[in-house]
């Protein structure tokens, strides 16, 4: 029997047992598309977080009070200690002390309820100084930002994020209106530009939903506390991405000396760069990918066991057929080849359909769950290869064993 005839016989067997073939193909399909989708979700999340963080700008340093050290564990909670002051920020802003620092913005942050007429909206309220706009890389779509005189006079003015303005005022022009923040009436002087929300990511707060007030106003009216000069963070913009490291050193040295600390391990503040956040996030996502890959591997294993079962059952119920074909003159080799063709056809069709289903899912699902899915060619090819291999091993092995039986034993089997 030549190759074409063998192929035709195998194909005939696949086509003439439609239900059995369809179930086998379905099992392979689901296994493969599950692998493609789970791996794709992991890689998509990784890519998304990476791009979001890099969009924040990588020449930014954030100083927060308190520190964690590997030797002594937690030293004060983030944001709970009051070790950072407006004076620290002022010192860092000095060109002499820190030539690689472009601008410095001290900031406090609190969450408050904003009321405008009948609308109310809870969001984060940032108290800061005029350099915040440059440090954060923001612009105004309307009105003006906080100026030095607002700080000096503790002016009761507020700048709103686009989303916040929309929530409070709808389509009315917010500039010149009054907003009650935690019961304190403040007049709206401007609206920040829209930077686009990274809605689904929990790693970055929505930059379009916040209210910005002068630092002095915030500490006097909103945050209160014992030390009116303390801030919850100091944002530092290096002169460029390449001087970030130098800016880090200068900040560290200056703050240590200002706070009278002699050892780096005794630091009562923490400096983080966006690059650190990026690498942390990336490593988190790598863990996520490994996790999802593990889940995908298990689903492939389960799918593979399904394929194995259906192949074993289908061959077992066909032992009589194998016996008959042998009685009619088929040699064991011909029988093996027929089943090899059958298993390969089922594996390939299931593999390709599964890959298609996975890719369709990767395109369609993000519209429903707002998470990006990156199709990984490696994962897809690997999944198909494994499915075909499982199909062949468990389709051909029992058939090959049956082909070795004396034909009469095979014929008599029920």
């Amino acid at each position: 029997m030549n190759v074409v005839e063998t192929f035709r016989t195998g194909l005939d067997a696949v086509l003439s047992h439609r239900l059995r073939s369809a179930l086998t193909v379905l099992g392979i399909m689901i296994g493969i598309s599950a692998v493609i989708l789970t791996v794709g979700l992991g890689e998509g999340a990784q890519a998304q977080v990476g791009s979001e963080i890099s969009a924040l700008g990588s020449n930014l340093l954030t100083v927060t009070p308190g520190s964690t050290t590997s030797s002594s564990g937690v030293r004060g909670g983030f944001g709970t200690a009051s070790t950072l002051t407006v004076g620290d920020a002022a010192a860092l802003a000095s060109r002499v002390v820190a030539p690689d620092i472009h601008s410095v913005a001290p900031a406090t942050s609190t969450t408050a309820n904003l009321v405008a007429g009948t609308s109310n909206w809870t969001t984060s309220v940032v108290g800061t100084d005029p350099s915040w706009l440059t440090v954060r890389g923001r612009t105004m779509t309307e009105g003006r930002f906080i100026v030095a005189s607002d700080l000096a006079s503790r002016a009761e003015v507020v700048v709103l994020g686009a989303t916040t303005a929309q929530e409070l005022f709808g389509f009315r022009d917010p500039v010149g209106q009054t907003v009650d923040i935690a019961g304190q009436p403040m007049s709206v002087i401007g609206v920040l530009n829209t930077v686009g929300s990274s809605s689904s990511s929990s790693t970055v707060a929505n930059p379009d939903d916040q209210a910005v007030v002068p630092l002095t106003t915030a500490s006097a009216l909103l945050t209160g506390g014992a030390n009116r000069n303390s801030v919850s963070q100091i944002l530092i913009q290096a002169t460029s991405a390449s001087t970030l490291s130098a800016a880090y050193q200068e900040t560290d040295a200056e703050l240590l000396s200002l706070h009278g600390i002699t050892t780096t391990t005794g630091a009562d503040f923490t400096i983080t760069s966006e690059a650190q956040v990026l690498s942390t996030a990336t490593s988190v996502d790598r863990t996520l990918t490994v996790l999802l890959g593990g889940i995908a591997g298990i689903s492939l294993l389960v799918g593979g066991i399904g394929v194995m079962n259906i192949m074993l059952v289908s061959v077992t119920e066909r032992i009589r057929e194998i016996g008959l074909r042998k009685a009619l003159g088929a040699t064991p080799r011909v029988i093996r080849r027929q089943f090899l063709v059958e298993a390969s056809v089922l594996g390939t069709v299931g593999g390709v359909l599964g890959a298609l289903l996975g890719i369709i899912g990767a395109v369609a699902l993000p519209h429903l769950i707002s998470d990006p899915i990156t199709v990984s060619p490696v994962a897809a090819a690997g999944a198909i290869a494994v499915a075909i291999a499982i199909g062949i091993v468990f389709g051909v092995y029992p058939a090959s064993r049956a082909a070795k039986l004396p034909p009469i034993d095979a014929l008599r089997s029920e």
Partner: protein
Amino acid sequence: MTRPDGTGSPEEAGHPSGFEDTGPVRIEPTAVHPVLDPALRPVGRRPVIEVRDVWKTYRNGTLEVDALRGVSFAIDPGEYVAIMGPSGSGKSTLMHILGCLDIPTSGEFRLAGDDVSTMTEEELAHVRNKRIGFVFQQFNLLSSLSAWRNVELPLLYAGVERTARKRRALEALERVGLADRVDHRPGELSGGQQQRVAVARALVTDPALILADEPTGNLDSVSARDVMDLLDELHRSGRTIVLITHDAEVSEAAGRSIRIRDGQISSPVTSGSGPA
């Protein structure tokens, strides 16, 4: 029987349609040395089947059961022989050995002069394919294939080219009176029709021997008559037929009966029609 492409086995070609050995089972003391090339082998008078002192022992754990205990006989070309016996007599075991579906534990079995017991699995497959046509009690048709696709199977394994396969399958089906059912699947045919498809499949390769194992066992009397008539007709056209049955009535169609009981030939009797 037409032989359109001349691929039939040479042993069977041109032998006389009658047979003369109507006596007891012949036991030939020595066999002619087999000539390896079948084309050079003398044809005609050589027995199609020579069985000499064949034993078959089944082992079930420590229990040994002798299904055949020293069976010897010969069947000439063109004979129509019934092998009879009650169930458990060993007749099915004998049939499996005659059909090269099983091998004897000891003893010699020559099919058309070739010693089957020394053959490899592959050679046995070729012998089954080219020299033997099977008709089973259970029909054993592949339910997913149409009648003609079932009939062509032996030709497929013989390596016959596609168009020739179809032509010969259709001819064989016409011969058994199923020319109008070639595209039906077994499920769409009656029991008698299915068994006729099986007969067509048995004769499509022009085998030296047609082995029918209780061919009427699953059929009503009318269908059984049809199938027996068909075997009769094949016999008249010169084929060697071995019929295994427990039914004395069925065995009367045969020219000779070999009775088997407890694994041994009990009374090799002659009966039936004599030379056709």
